[in-house]
């Protein structure tokens, strides 16, 4: 880690049900110096986010157990998640295109909505390396 490490993203929670995809993103992010924890369904993801602090949560939408939207709503509700640090950046990383209304609803709670197929693991790692903690990395693709 270089000198900027302190104010850049370090601890990442990756909530992704497709194991191949999760492992791949985790491996590439770890090779780039990030500390990555994986959760393979919504329930596990919510529990991990509620019990341990992370700098960044990468959240899929289509998840078994609890959906990404349900996890997001639970995390952003201080009554349900009193221990969760509300300054934590949450980025939706999915291949699922929501309708505009739902997307708006999601973007009120999350900081970005990225389409996985355009953000390869290395692209994501590069984006995050250049971004300060609490800021949203500029997306190489239009956020639709």
């Amino acid at each position, binding site marked *: 880690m270089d000198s900027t490490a302190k104010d850049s993203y370090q601890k990442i929670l990756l909530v992704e049900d497709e194991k191949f995809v999760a492992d*791949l993103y985790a*491996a*590439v992010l770890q090779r780039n110096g990030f500390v990555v924890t994986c959760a393979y*369904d919504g329930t596990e993801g919510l529990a991990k986010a509620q019990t341990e602090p992370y700098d960044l949560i990468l959240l899929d*939408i*289509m998840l*078994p157990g609890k*959906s990404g939207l349900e996890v997001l709503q639970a995390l952003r509700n201080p009554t349900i998640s009193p221990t969760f640090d509300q300054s934590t950046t949450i980025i939706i990383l999915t291949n699922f*295109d929501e309708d505009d209304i739902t997307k708006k609803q999601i973007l009120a709670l999350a900081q970005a909505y990225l389409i996985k197929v355009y953000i390869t693991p290395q692209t994501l790692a590069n984006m995050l390396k250049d971004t300060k903690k609490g800021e949203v990395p500029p997306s190489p693709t239009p956020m639709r």
Partner: protein
Amino acid sequence: MHRIHLTIRLRLILASSLLLLVIFTGMTVYLVRINTETLRTNLQNEAKAFAALATAPVADSYNLYSESGTDQIRAAMANYLGLSRSITNITVVDLNGHRLFAYHPATSPTVTAKQASHFTPLYVKQGGRLQYVVYPYFSTSGAHPFTMVYSVSNDQVDSAIRHEVESLVLFGILLLLLTSGLTNFLLDRIIVRPVREVSRQAKVISDGHLEQQISVHGQDEIALLGQAVNSMAESLKHSIAQLEEIDKVKSEFMAITSHNLRTPLTIINGYLESVEMFDTVDKLKEMIGRIGDSVKRLGSFSEDVLIISSIELGEKMPRKQVSANTFMQTIIDQTRTAAELQGLSLVATIETQAMVSVNEPYLRNAVWNLVDNALKFTPKGGKITITTTESDGMVHIQVADTGIGIAADELSKLFTKFHRATSVIRYDYQGTGIGLYATKIIIEQQGGNIEVKSEEGHGSTFTINLPVASAAETAHTSP
């Protein structure tokens, strides 16, 4: 809207007034004619009676004073004329019609000798009106020295008739005003107000409040109008709901389709990008295996989407006679290899020699979707049973597994395009799929049907039923 409603009201009032006017005018003409007749008869009778009563006394005065004083004759005549308003003049003529005396000489009528010498009274009319009465005077000795002529005035009759017409017209106008007022009131009560109420409520509906119902009272035309608007709103509501449903299904189809195409691409892109991470042959093998799986997933999903699109677009699939036995043998051979690799046992039997009329690649896709699911959802050590039987003119292809099974509430939604709860995004087990939907519509296109039985935790059994090709079809396609 306001103008039309006024026009209808005005039109109806005008129509009813016109009708009343015609009826009333007819009635007036009839009444006046009857009354005129009566009045004229009365006048005639009065004149006749007057003549009968006045002739003797006037003649006596005439005889008495003819030599000495006309003043006395005039006085007697004036006395009698004062008794009747209809007699205006008395003239005395000799039997040749020559005037002997006249009360008003200027207006005395001219009488012919024939009239003057007549034995009985004459009623001389002109234009249907009695003008004068020629009344012969006979002395007590029976002599006929002269004749009286009484001029009759029709003024009284005329004024009576005028008066009657005037009062009738006045009455008519009053009646007309009353009737149009009443018509207006009744129209308002019976038609205008209910119509306005219906149109007010219809406006609410047209403003988008389709749940609004027009209150319907009774069975009349306005009630029918209300009912018609209600049923229109109802069918609009239905159509809108249908369109919204179609729209929702369409966007879900798009969303899930793009998701299913993007996920394998994500894996392929990700692995290719980090190829240097896989620095041993084993790691590389694993990577290539995963890319291969993703390519396969992309392929079969694309295939399903294409099949669904072409069937939904109504494209005809060419069919031909296929031996169920041969067809299933190929599938079983492929399944056996895959099952062995996954550590599953396979039991397969074929008990039919029937031909089926199908599109072979599509049917293969349909059956393979079932076999693929069985392979996917049956854990190691499990068993897959594929049987092909024939009964009642149908070929039954059954694929049973001892896999994870399907929950009862999922079963009914299994063959829908995407079975995903609305609003809240739910995850379906792998194969968020259109595979079973594709299978269903393929089988239905070939004239068959598909059934499923399943118990969660104990496995599933899918059965495809296809009609046996008829003898005629067989003969037709045989060389």
